[in-house]
């Protein structure tokens, strides 16, 4: 079964600092990869997704992620965070046996201070 690891559980940054959140998955075949964001008290929203092609994916709100197949990684980045980026971030990978299912990481809570 697929597994997803997010090594950073809680990250605290000052505004304008750069962000990188790690995500590693276990399955070595073809995968679809996603980053979701959950703002306090809200539901999950898609930040970006990777299906194929250019491994550098750009999403909403200035976020981007790089798919590195050799490292089984899909790290999320943002050059300069804002206070409004305070949220929980989840990496997800589709289940290779059933393309419709997603396996989520445990999440990274990002706190941006002024």
């Amino acid at each position, binding site marked *: *079964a697929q597994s997803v690891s*997010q090594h950073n559980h809680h990250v605290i940054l000052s505004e304008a600092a750069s962000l990188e959140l790690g995500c590693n998955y276990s399955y070595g075949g073809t995968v*679809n990869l*996603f980053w*979701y964001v959950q703002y306090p008290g*809200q*539901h*999950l*929203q*898609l930040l970006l*997704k990777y*299906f194929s092609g250019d491994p550098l994916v750009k999403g909403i709100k200035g976020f981007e992620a790089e798919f590195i197949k050799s490292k089984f990684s899909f790290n999320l980045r943002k050059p300069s965070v804002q206070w409004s980026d305070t949220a929980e971030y*989840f990496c997800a990978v*589709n289940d290779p046996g*059933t*393309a*419709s*299912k*997603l*396996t*989520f*990481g*445990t*999440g990274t809570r990002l706190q941006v201070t002024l």
Partner: protein
Amino acid sequence: DAGITQSPRHKVTETGTPVTLRCHQTENHRYMYWYRQDPGHGLRLIHYSYGVKDTDKGEVSDGYSVSRSKTEDFLLTLESATSSQTSVYFCAISGDRASPYNEQFFGPGTRLTVL
């Protein structure tokens, strides 16, 4: 936002009582999912559906059952609620007929407390 509603949004119940949560979509998407979200565990799949009357188990299905009699509705039932089922429950949908690989869209969640 995708047209997904969940009801109720909040519920407090007692151990041993049955509970049914409803997910309703207006997007005509094929796939529907139920997740639970718990601190330190992220989202875990309970059950999912790939069509009317077609359902399958996820990783944490014990104690839960589902039904899908119409494309737009996906019900999650806790036959006899336990305190370990206190959680936030999210419904999600995905997959129009053109591609099953679309991202999942999430509902607003239901906060369930089992006393």
